[in-house]
């Protein structure tokens, strides 16, 4: 009876964002909301945990208090979020994960990228393009496993190449352009002979690109990022030293996630895990993603 | 049975301020220590109470050496001290300030009703029964805070009671209560060490008087063998022919008129006029509302009836200056240098363009330090907190004199100031009045209020109850109007 009533009045779907203050995550939130609008009868309630796992659990509890029909967890912090998932399970609500897949715990469905594959992709592109010293700029612990997967993907390709040396920046870029800039400045001081830089996301690469330009090494060093942030796409299209990124589009994932949740609520049997492909973006195809 | 300090030396940051002081006292004695501002009296007392360590020397009781490296040690030996600077915890009740560290307990927890009872009893015994132990200390007047400080020292039956200028903020009945207390303790065999600048008091109370000058004991005497004049001579190294200046000629035009000023709960319907060239005393008992009145006149507080200056800035522009009674709380910026404190009122008015005129600040401060004999020498660049109490008071005065006031309000300006300096201050006020200033001298010292002024206003419970010419008026006549009928 619950279901029938739900269908008539439409659904309310709660979105529990782990961290909204990043363009990727706010983009995801917006994409989910936008897709909900197209359905006409789906209401979205969105929360932000500000990067705090406990707050995420609290927000999920608040959403359940509001008696939402389903919950989407975006950018979940962990390999698992037992308390949040348990609460949802106890309330007998479906939960769809986007971006991050939990290795344990029960969820209804997951939609996200294959971060390791994106890293590999960048690695292969760089392997074909450069020889010499390649630097890695990591985002930081807040999102450890995503970054780790991307970097591991890259290393799995470049680590085996005899003509390539990998150097890792010792401090984190904290996923932002300002952090990317500072870390790159440090790298340039220590390794004047770099030929390429890989950043765990585009935002850091954009900052790193500025540092390289200021040091007058634009001709010497190329950049590879992840995400497909608009500014990065533009830089790639313009033929700068920003040469490649892997698409990890919040728009695509968010849209799919909302569709998937509505399907679940409609009683459909759905695929458990869906990997959204992350096409490689270079100068040749950048225009189609802008 | 004697308490004996032997060859005590004390240095602050490498500068010696006590150069081998030796003194002793026996139970039942009232040992007075007198000396000019900065002579080292408070330092000596801080050593005795374990508040600061001595650099070298010994403290013995009956020949046995006492180790007092902390106030706790001193308490353990029965030595209790009332320090010169008030230091109650303002947020806490009187009870708590009194019994801190000595609470009555039940089942391990503080028994508050018993604590209040005990505190009330303690105040009663000390003769300060007017104070409600449940009041927060910060709400008490300075005088009552001082009484609490004194009562605090009695918590655990001291065998030595050390009082550093306890009378400086007391007057009238409160002062009598203090003297009575001291006599009672004396008769019980307590050794009382008593520091004061009020020599009459010292001569009345003391069994022995020790004169300290520049960190050395220069004389030990008894009240019978000396008088004020010779004590001042010993302390100051100079003779004072007279304490109060000659009376001034008839006053001139009115400079400040207060009409029907009042502030709810504090004072009411106060009117008076200050004229050029006169010094007017304002006498009253503790809590009679003099300080609040002065604050309202000066624009530091808002009156609820009548008109006054709207801000201190306005008052200063009109040529009014006010030396407040609480020098640490509202007179000085303790961490700043003497020069900056003196310059506080004038660095804007004398600025050259956007910049402070440093040359002028330097010479002004130097002149004031010279004129008021602010010690130690070269103190211009010292943080004012390192000066002795009396010298701090002079810094406050200097700051205000630099504004070239036409009306000067002085709230207890000689509190804690040594006799020789007091005389200097009276002379200076006199000089200012002769130059055409009007001075309002608020004081709890009856002798001073009659000696240094031309007429006296008397305040009782927030109302002016009399105006008397200073010449020919007796202390009794003034007190009569100050004490509630």
């Amino acid at each position, binding site marked *: 009876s619950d279901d029938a009533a739900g269908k008539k009045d439409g659904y309310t779907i709660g979105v529990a964002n782990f961290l909204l203050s990043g363009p990727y995550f706010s983009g995801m939130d917006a994409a989910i909301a936008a897709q909900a609008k197209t359905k006409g009868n789906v209401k979205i309630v969105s929360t932000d945990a500000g990067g705090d796992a406990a707050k995420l659990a609290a927000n999920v509890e608040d959403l359940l208090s509001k008696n939402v029909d389903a919950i989407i967890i975006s950018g979940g912090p962990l390999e698992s979020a*037992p308390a949040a998932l*348990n609460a949802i399970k106890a309330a007998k609500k479906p939960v769809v994960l986007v971006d991050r897949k939990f290795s344990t715990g029960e969820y209804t469905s997951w939609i996200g990228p294959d971060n390791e594959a994106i890293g590999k992709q960048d690695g292969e592109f760089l392997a074909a393009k450069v020889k010499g010293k390649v630097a890695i700029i990591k985002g930081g*612990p807040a999102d*450890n496993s995503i970054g780790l997967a991307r970097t591991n993907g890259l290393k799995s390709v470049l680590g085996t190449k005899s003509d390539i040396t990998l150097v890792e920046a010792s401090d984190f870029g904290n996923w932002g352009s300002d952090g990317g800039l500072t870390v790159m400045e440090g790298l340039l001081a220590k390794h004047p002979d770099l030929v390429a830089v890989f950043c765990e996301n585009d935002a850091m690469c954009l900052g790193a690109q500025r540092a390289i330009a200021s040091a007058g090494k634009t001709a010497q060093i190329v950049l590879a990022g992840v995400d497909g942030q608009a500014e990065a796409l533009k830089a790639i299209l313009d033929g700068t030293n920003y040469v490649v990124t892997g698409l990890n589009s919040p728009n695509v994932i968010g849209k799919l996630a909302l569709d998937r949740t509505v399907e679940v609520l409609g009683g459909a049997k759905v695929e458990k895990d869906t990997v959204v492909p992350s096409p490689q973006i270079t100068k040749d195809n950048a225009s189609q993603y802008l | 049975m004697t308490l004996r300090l032997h060859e005590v030396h004390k240095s602050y940051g490498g500068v010696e301020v006590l150069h081998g002081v030796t003194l002793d006292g026996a139970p039942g004695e009232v040992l007075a220590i007198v000396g000019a501002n900065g002579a080292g009296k408070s330092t000596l007392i801080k050593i005795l109470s374990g508040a600061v360590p001595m650099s070298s020397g010994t403290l013995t009781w009956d020949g046995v050496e006492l180790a007092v490296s902390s106030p706790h040690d001193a308490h353990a030996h029965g030595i209790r001290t009332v320090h010169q600077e008030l230091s109650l*915890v*303002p947020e806490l009740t009187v009870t708590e300030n009194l019994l*801190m560290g000595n609470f009555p307990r039940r089942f391990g927890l503080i028994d508050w009703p018993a604590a209040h009872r005990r505190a009330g009893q303690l105040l009663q015994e000390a003769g300060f029964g007017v104070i*409600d132990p449940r009041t*927060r200390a910060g709400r008490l007047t300075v005088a009552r805070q001082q009484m609490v400080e004194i009562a*605090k020292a009695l918590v655990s039956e001291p065998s030595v009671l050390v009082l550093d200028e306890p009378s400086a903020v007391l007057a009238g009945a409160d002062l009598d209560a203090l003297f009575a207390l001291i006599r009672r303790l004396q008769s019980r065999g307590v050794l009382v060490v008593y520091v004061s600048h009020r020599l009459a008091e010292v001569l009345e109370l003391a069994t022995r008087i020790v004169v300290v000058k520049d960190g050395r004991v220069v004389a030990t005497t008894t009240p019978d063998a000396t008088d004020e004049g010779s004590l001042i001579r010993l302390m100051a190294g100079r003779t004072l022919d007279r304490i109060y200046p000659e009376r001034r000629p008839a006053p001139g035009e009115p400079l400040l008129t207060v009409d029907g000023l009042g502030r709810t709960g504090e004072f009411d319907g106060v009117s008076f006029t200050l004229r050029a060239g006169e010094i007017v005393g304002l006498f009253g008992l503790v809590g009679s509302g003099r300080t609040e009145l002065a604050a309202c006149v000066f624009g530091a507080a808002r009156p609820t009836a009548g008109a006054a200056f709207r801000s201190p800035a306005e008052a200063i522009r009109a040529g009014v200056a006010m030396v407040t009674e609480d020098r640490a709380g509202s007179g000085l910026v303790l961490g700043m240098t003497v020069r900056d404190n003196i310059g506080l009122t004038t660095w804007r008015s004398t600025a050259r363009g956007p910049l402070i005129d440093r040359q002028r600040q330097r010479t002004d401060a130097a002149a004031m330090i010279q004129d008021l004999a602010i010690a130690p020498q070269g103190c211009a660049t010292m943080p004012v907190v390192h000066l002795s109490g009396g010298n701090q008071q002079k810094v406050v005065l200097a700051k205000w004199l630099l504004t070239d006031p036409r009306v000067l309000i002085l709230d207890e300006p000689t509190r804690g100031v040594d006799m020789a300096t007091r005389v200097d201050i009276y002379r200076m006020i006199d000089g200012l009045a002769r130059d055409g200033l009007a001075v309002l001298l608020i004081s709890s010292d009856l002798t001073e209020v009659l000696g240094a002024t031309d007429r006296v206003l008397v305040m009782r419970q927030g109302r002016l109850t009399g105006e008397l010419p200073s010449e020919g008026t007796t202390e009794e006549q003034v007190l009569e109007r100050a004490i509630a009928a």
Partner: protein
Amino acid sequence: MTTLAVRVRGRDVTVEAAFTLLIAALIIVAATTSESFLTATNLTNLLKQMVTTGLLAFGMLVVILTGGIDLSVGSVVAFSGIVTAGLVADLPIPLAMLVGVASGIAFGAVNGVLVARFELAPFVVTLAALTTIRGLAFVYSEVPIAPADPGFLTLGSAMVGPIPLITLIMLAVFGIGGVFLARTPPGRSIIAIGGNAETVRLAGIDVRRHIVLAYTISGLCAGLAGIILTSRVGIAQPSVGVAFELDAIAACVIGGASLSGGRGSAKGAFGGVLVLVLINNLLNLYGVQSFWQQVLKGLIIIAVILVQRTRRPRSEAKGRA
């Protein structure tokens, strides 16, 4: 004199009444404008959500009363949590939790010694501790640790009747802590130290030891909060707890504590925690968009302390931190 004293007490009562009224108003507004507010689920959520901030706020209060501050609590929460989760593999759960709490106590004691013995500024000492302890949490484990043993979740999920166990623990801390501050000599000494440390020293009380005690209590509360949080979330994260200190401090000040020390109460701090948790809950229930939530949260906090202030006698409201 009696009148004055009565007036003072009367006024204190007014302040508390106003504050209680404010909280009541928040609750009434919530109950009438959001049908979800008074549901059992939501009330249980509220009870759970106040635990971490509550524990940290009590510890913070004790430190603030001395005139200090403890910025390191968020990092201690992370460290205690991750160490506990890590040790569960080798140790019985209660023992692992004890080690977590003990680590908090140890960090607190170190902070206290640096502040009291070496007379360093509490802000900088605990700021440095914030950095160092956070680093140590990551050094212990870069990745989150989820103990396999389901018994680990018990503490965080057990209910005593309608009330979560962890809420009871927090209430017990406030209860015992309140008595400690109001009715024991060390508690009173801590408050007096914040009012005037020199006076307390001259009263023969060991000021340093009490300051160390205060920071240790804060560390203890943070350690406890760490294991409770971990057990509640079911996983320990080395990155958890960033900026937790700010909410704890805000709760104390909303509850009437003065950051220059000497004034504040357990009751007040608890009220402050309630206000903060209610604000968060309400903004969520109303579905206010995340960034607007931040905007509003700041404005509401200002409004709350403005209301608080107008009820406070003017002479006590100093323009200082």
